[in-house]
Every structure is written in C-alpha cells, then in structure tokens.
C-alpha cells in the first residue's frame, strides 16, 4: 500500500529530516511511527500525502509513484489518503455536518449520497446528534472525532494521523484510539505518528521507530521503547 525506497529528505535550510528510509506498509496494517521530537516523524507522514517531496528516493502509494506526481494530480492522491492532525483542522464557520460533507462535495458526490454517507460516519464516531453544532461548541475529543469522520467519509484506503491524541486528555485519547481500531478493522490502513507511550504499549501494533532520520527499529507488535 505504502512503499518508501531509499527516501532522503533534506529541507532547504540544510536540515536532513530523513535519510535512506526503506519501508513497506501493507494494506490493512496499523502502524505506529514513534521516536524523539525532531527525529523525522512528521516528515515521514507528510511524504505520504505529498505535502513534501523526497529529495531522493521514491514514495509509492496505492501502486502509484507520487514523487513525479503533477500538481494537478495531487487532489486525486489526497482523495485516497485521509489525514488527521493534532489540531483537528476543522473549518470553524461550518457546522459538524458541513465539515464532514465537505470532503465529499469536493469530489462531486451526489447530494443524496453525501447525506447518507455523512450520517453513517457521524453515527460511527457517535456524534450524529450534534450534526448541526459548530466545532467550537464541541470538546476537543469530539472535534477530533469529527476530523476522523471527515478523513474516512470517502472511504480512503489509508488514514494518516499526526499525533491525533496530542491535544487530548487520557480518557478521550482512549476513545479516539478505539475509533481508529474500528476503522482499521474495516480494512483501512492506519499510519499514526505518536508520543503516547501508554497507548503504543497497550494497543500492540507494528512500531516503526525513527531516530536521526533513520529507521532504528521496525517490530510487529512492538512497544514504545522510550521513556515517556
């Protein structure tokens, strides 16, 4: 599903975020990306949805090399990759329903279908009853669930999450993790960068540790491996 071949990323300011990374992530996997701050986790994530381009090497998503992707083809890639962020990135002036429906509107889905699919995912994340509320009227955990609903509403093959529980309290974090597990059980690949030791050590999945821009460790059912 996702393949990185000899990927190196140097930023214009001279920082080398990743060097010589080789990774294969299969369809349906659940992968944690862990490592110290500044080790290259975020860069790793950004390469997958083509927010960044590698300086060297190749990134393949869904069988297509996205390195040489033309500007106008990027939207097509983004529609196959759902993204979730630490700061939710919801549109504050749109209500919950509109925020989620947005991801379908941009790909010109019929209104009747949009309604059905949005209501389905809102039901899945447990916020169907708050569809008409604005994001600012919801708690952090609820906002993150909206963001997750938006990321999966068009049934992408992969959901990428960058510190999705970073802004949430422990209880809420567990709720969010259960949601990701549910999504993963439906066959969606999940790649999650996280600092949350407890979660990684409890919900045991594949762990890829990045240190100084290199893959230091890649274990099935691994543990966090760092002191929190």
């Amino acid at each position: 599903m996702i393949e990185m071949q000899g990927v190196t990323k140097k930023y214009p300011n001279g920082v080398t975020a990743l060097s010589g990374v080789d990774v294969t992530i299969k369809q349906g996997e659940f992968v944690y990306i862990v490592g110290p701050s500044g080790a290259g986790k975020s860069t790793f994530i950004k390469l997958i949805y083509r927010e960044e381009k590698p300086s060297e090497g190749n990134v393949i998503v869904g069988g297509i090399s996205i390195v040489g992707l033309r500007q106008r083809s990027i939207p097509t890639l983004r529609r196959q990759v759902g993204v979730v962020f630490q700061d939710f990135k919801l549109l504050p002036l749109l209500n919950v329903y509109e925020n989620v429906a947005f991801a379908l509107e941009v790909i010109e889905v019929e209104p009747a279908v949009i309604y059905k699919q949005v209501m389905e995912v809102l039901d899945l994340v447990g916020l169907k009853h708050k569809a008409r509320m604005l994001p600012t009227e919801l708690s952090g955990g609820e906002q993150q669930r909206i963001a997750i609903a938006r990321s999966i509403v068009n049934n992408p093959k992969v959901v990428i999450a960058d510190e999705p529980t970073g802004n949430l309290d422990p209880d809420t974090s567990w709720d969010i993790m259960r949601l990701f597990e549910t999504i993963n059980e439906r066959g969606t690949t999940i790649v999650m960068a996280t600092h949350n030791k407890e979660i990684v050590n409890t919900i045991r999945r594949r762990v890829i540790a990045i240190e100084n821009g290199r893959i230091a460790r890649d274990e099935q059912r691994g543990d966090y491996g760092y002191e929190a």
Partner: protein
Amino acid sequence: MNSGVITAMKPRTFRRHFRESFKNLRRNGWMTFAAVSAVTVTLLLTGVFLVIMLNLNKVATDIENDVEVRVHIKLLAEEKDKEQLRMQIESLPEVESVDYSSKEEELQNMIKDMGSDFSLFEQSNPLYDVFIVKTVRPQDTPNAARKIEQFEYTETAVYGEEKVENLFSFMKTARNIGVVLVAGLLFTAMFLISNTIKITIFARRKEIEIMKLVGATNGFIRWPFLLEGLWIGLLGSLIPIGAISVGYYYAEQALSARLSAHFIEFIGYLPLVLPVTGLLLIIAIFIGIWGSFISVRRFLNV
C-alpha cells in the same frame, strides 16, 4: 474509490459554488462589509469625478465650437468681389463652413440681443456685411483669421483673440489633469479593493489549506472565491450607481435652470448616467473578480 481523472464541472457543482459563495459572504460578514465598503467609496469617488469631468469637457467643447471668425467685408466690395472673397476663404484647408450675413441681418440680430434702442441705427446702418467662418478644428481659428486678413476685400477678421487662445490652453491643461486624475483614482480603487479582498482571503487561508488536504482541485477552491468577488463588486457598485443616478437627476435640473442663461448646457440625464453607471458596473465586476483571482492564486500555489 474516487480515483482517476478529474472531470469537467457538473451543473450541480456550479450550483454548489453559487450557493457557497453566498454563504461565505454571510459567514465572513465583517470582511464582506469591509470589501464592499472599499468598493463603494472608491467607485463613488470615481463616479462623481467622472460626472464632473465629462460635463466640464462638454462645456469646454461647446465653447470651443462656438468660436468663429467674423470677417467684415469692405464696404466698397461689389457682389462679385464678395463672391471672390467667399471662394478664397473656402479654399483655406482649415475652413469648414462660410455663412453670409448682410448688415441688415446683423442689425436685426443686434436689436434682438441688445434691445430696441439699437433700432435707431436702422436709419443709417453702421455695420458691415460679414462672413461667419467656422474652422474644422477650433484651435485653427487664429491661423485662419490671420490668413483671411490678407485677402483683398477683408476689412478685418475678428475672433475674440486673446480670450480664445487663453481658453484653448486652459482647456488643454484641464483635460490632461482630468485624465491623469481619473486614471489615478481608478488605479487607487483597484489597488485598495484588491488589497481588501486579499486580506479577507488571507484570513481564510486555513480554509484553503483544508480544502487542499481533502483533495479539492484548485478550480474547485477558486470558483466560490471568484463568485464572491463578483458579488462584492456588484454590492459595492449599488450605492455609487444609485447615488449618481438620483444625484445627477437633481443636479442637472437645478444647475441647468440656473446656468442656461449663460449658454452653458450640461450633458442630458440618460446620455450621461447610462455610460457612467455602465462603466462603474464593469469596473466593479472586473475589480471584484480580478482581486479574488490574484489573491486566491497566491494561496493555491503553495
């Protein structure tokens, strides 16, 4: 899976953009207000200034066109001499028309203009027969007059000499200043409005970023903004167009009543208001769309 080519816009999508642009105007209420106000103020200034400029120009042209050379014909000239003089005048390249007016006609005109006191002169008419000469271009009047003076049967050729020459140079300067001012005003308007729109869009760059994240094409993102710019332009043109339509109606009536005694005539209501408001409308639409286009483009190409 929604992969593959991104197809041309469906009518439904266009309706969505349409709806979305209106919603955005409402959601960004204050920004909309700021942008609309900028359009309103600048267009109002531009419009009022245009109205004044066009009318000054009209009055100036009228005055210029009234300039004529009065050729006094020597008293001794016979019918055939007059005919010869007329031919000489007509052969000048600057001359457009030559009209004859006998001294009796001249006197009647004078009596009409100045009052019946002048009817005393009916006994012994002191006036000349005249040719009234109009030049093709008003500026050529002095030249033509000078040449006509040389002709055998010309007594004098008068055209209000210095007054006319001063008027011409004044009008030329006034027109040039007017053109520069209108151009400057329009440029300022464009700059101010596109900047205001840029600020409103800058406030929404996060929105654009999120649209891109969920896979919106650049065209899809751009459309509602362009329509929004169009509405802002149109809304902003309402007050200036209304003010000029109503204002000129009353101004023209009030001023032309007072000034018609001085032979000054303003441009009629419709001949002025239609082109001016039309121009304002076009400027508003153009500025609105162009301002949005420039601003969105900056945030799309990241």
